[in-house]
């Protein structure tokens, strides 16, 4: 029989909780409450802010992140997160996050919409045009340069190793040497 059908005082008197500090005092509503992480899939992750490298547990329910918290398994962080790490859910769901490409023409006063595929095509064209126009085959003394000096890159240090690898590989093949990141700053 469901214990909670009885009056609390009866539960207290007849049940296992004579002091009414636990189950005897709990209402059905409280008993029904579930953590928002209950039943969520846990995806193991790493905090994206500083380089301490704290472990994070990302809780996913219905293809949506419902909670991000410290991973007690991590031997470095032992479950802890700092104020920034604790705010990671708000970071990935920031009200200021935008999800569509924006385009500003030269001398224009406003943004325009631009489909992603079109933007990719235009950027590829810009890269090749600037590469063509600023190509340096040799220096004044005839030493080989084989580089494109008209394009520069500044990339964050919160990117993945795999991303940095593809960047460096592509830029080097294009002859772009001015490739830099936050480590310099």
């Amino acid at each position, binding site marked *: 029989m469901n214990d909670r059908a009885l009056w609390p005082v009866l539960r207290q008197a007849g049940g296992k909780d004579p002091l009414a500090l636990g189950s005897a005092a709990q209402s059905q509503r409280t008993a029904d409450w579930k953590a928002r992480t209950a039943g969520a899939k846990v995806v*193991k992750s*790493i905090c*994206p*802010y*500083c*380089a*301490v490298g704290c472990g994070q547990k*990302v809780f996913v329910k219905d293809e949506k*992140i419902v909670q991000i918290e410290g991973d007690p*398994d991590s*031997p*470095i962080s032992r479950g802890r997160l*700092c*104020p920034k790490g604790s*705010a990671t859910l*708000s*970071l990935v769901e*920031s*009200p*200021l996050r935008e*999800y569509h*490409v924006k385009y*500003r*023409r*030269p001398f224009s*006063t406003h943004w325009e919409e631009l489909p992603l595929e079109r*933007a*990719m095509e*235009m950027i590829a064209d810009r890269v*090749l045009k*600037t*590469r063509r126009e*600023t*190509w340096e*085959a040799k220096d004044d003394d005839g030493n*080989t*340069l084989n580089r*494109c000096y*008209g394009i520069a*890159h*500044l990339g964050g240090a*919160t*990117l*993945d*190793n*795999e*991303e*940095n690898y*593809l*960047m*460096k*590989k*592509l830029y080097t093949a294009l*002859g*772009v040497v001015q490739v*830099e*990141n*936050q480590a*310099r*700053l």
Partner: protein
Amino acid sequence: MGTSFGRGGATTFQQDLQNSDCIVIMGSNMAENHPVGFQWVMEARERGAQVIHVDPRFTRTSAVATKHVPIRAGSDIAFLGGIIHYILENDRAFKEYVVNYTNAPVILREDFKDSEELDGFFSGWHPDTNGYTFETWQYKGMQMHGAAGQREDQSLLAKVPGLKPGEDALKNGEPPNMDKTLQDPRCVYQVLKRHYARYTPETVARICGTDPQHVIDVAEALCANSGRERTSAFCYSVAWTQHTTGVQTIRGAAIIQLLLGNIGRPGGGILALRGHASIQGSTDIPTLFNLLPGYVPMPHALAHDDLKDFIESEGAKTGSWGNMDKYIVSLLKAWFGERASEKNDFCFDLLPRISGDHSTYRSIMGMLDGTVKGFFCIGENPAVGSANSGLHRRAMANLDWLVVRDFSEIESASFWYDAPEIESGELRTESIPTEVFWMPAAAHTEKDGSFTNTQRLLQWHHKAVEPLGDARSELWFYYHLGKRIKEKIAQQEEPFSEPVAFLTWNYPEKGETSDPDAQAVLREINGWDASGKALSDSNSLKSDGSTACGCWIYCGCFKDEVNQTARRKPGTEQSWVAPEWAWAWPANRRIIYNRASADPQGKPWSERKKYVWWDEENGEWTGHDVPDFNKTKRPDYIPKTGAKAEDAIAGWHPFVMQDDGLGWLFVPAGIVDGPLPVHYEPHESPVQNALYSQQANPCRQEFPRTFNESNPSPSDEHGNVFPFVLHTYRLTEHHTAGGMSRTVPHLSELQPEFFCEVSPELAQLRGLTHRDWATIFTSRAVVEARVMVTDRVKPMHVDGKTLHSVGLPYHWGSRGLVTGDSANDLLGITLDPNVHIQETKGLTCDIISGRRPRGKDVPGFMNAVRTRSHLENRT
């Protein structure tokens, strides 16, 4: 650290701090900026360790330290020099370690002259080029080669006539001229002693604005907590690197740690605390102009005609860099696949050449000058985050095109309509030619990939959900951009198209958005053998083209076809070293140079500090970590003359990356501004150099131009116009330029407003009121901030003069949930000559009460400031 020990990475790991008997935190506010890592400092303190915080400000790190020593911003080398002086004068070095594991006994050349002899310069100075030539810094009778450090300066690569390279010069594995009694006046130990003879506690205290007793106390704490039974550690972050003497400051700590025998041992080491999730990774697999993956240098136009040349001049003959041919050939195989063969030099000719400094500040100057036309700004916000951010905004307003990828529309994407220069009328939206593409980026929860943390640890994060809308990972962006460019190049005529056409670019695509498989990229970074099987470590790399490897120091991260970086055996279920949590480079070693944790005979220095030792019975090195040494090389191994690469390293030399296997107290190669650290004043300083007539680092890189003027310093005329020290820093609740924190409601609420920290004395002097406004200006810019009057900032008494300082957190900009002026607008661009990092932790400024001028009044105000300091005559 690279120049002292051989690798540019933290020598230890955060958890190992718990084993320290004394921790010196300097150039870092660890408790506030790395709070979770700081738990290991607290563990050590609980176990009785001393925790010393040396910093201009009293912060939460100081609050829990056992001792706080306030010193003037920019005086760190003097303070460290004072500790070195104390160790040497009182004969407190760990002699057995120093004699066997460092270059202290090495005899230097007769023609080497120290900065003490030449008033702040070393021998080899050329005033006409503002730089050094380096041959006099070499060991007597041996050509040394920098395992790390600067290589883009062509003269560094020059061979010194008459000097033999390591393979021929090393005698029984040791440099040819040594005095193990350390008595020879030309041995490194004695040179070091003379170099720091004048860095007495009194002199140092006078320079640093602190008490001589503080210098003695810190030095004594370090000496008392070093040796066989005890170890001490140093922690630092950007308050050491962001100076015109940044590299030399870290060198100062390296000298102390080598003299005290604290490198390669548990509880010892130097821990660089880095501020971005994968900043170590982005130098290991560098998005840096002068490097290829794994610290292999970019080919230089004047030095490297072909692959043979490159290997000849860049690879050492002895030490791990003796394997340069294997590293570069395997990299070229990873990039150019079947196309790279012995016949065509493995496509070495397809690599572009550098010809000097092409670092980001040079690129900015190029944008202003119109030579740089296109710019990719990826997860970075230079319009707020870079020194002299105003100059960056002007530079970006002069581009043909700009691609910005971020979570939201950051200041670097919006400058063309809302920069302060638009408000002041100095720039007009309708006149800015820059075509801007803003693209939404995916968050770490929306992509697979690995970060390399501050202790060289690669940790995998798994994708939790798909990114929304057009948001994509950088992996997606670069993969698909590359794919398109490859298609176009196949169809149209382009200059030198082979490198793009030949580039291997086949990664499996997944899902609706055709996302490239990040694990496939990691596997390429790890590399494979001739049969296509994943390599297990860098020892299996070959120079004949049969192996491919995208980054040799990461080789092993995909060992046994398993993503080792995704290993997550709970810390509680393994030893304190936790070797089965993720994967550290190199070869999963957590403390590097750990051969030094045993004595020359291979026995632990003490039971208490046991870590890696020689197991005579099994004939191998063993212990709590992966030995950073050839596993079966005996501790008494004596190399034959002519031995190459690692075979040339003696069994008792732990620093295997160096060509002599020794820790370098004195750096004979790889550093451009001196073999030993010298105290120079910051580029902008309110005082004169008390030790030398040479005021600042003579090799520093300056960019004198309009909008990047320098404030005059005291020996100059009008040196008193900017009387206060300015330094910038970070807060716990924000992240650099704010792109990942001013967009976050919780964090914005916790730290809503830009403020300046001043002492009550300065507040009184300038009439500043707590919580009211102040205007701060330099010759570059003017900003306003809320005033925080606090005892945490104390006036310093330097050389009889009272010095006040203004502290500024630099997180704000014109956008985000909370806005404010950018402190970085105030900074000038002047750089360390080795690594091209700017000086932000010690400049000068002025501060007045009230709000700043607005709109069109700003240029007028700035012109008046420039006139007062007579800058028109200086740039």
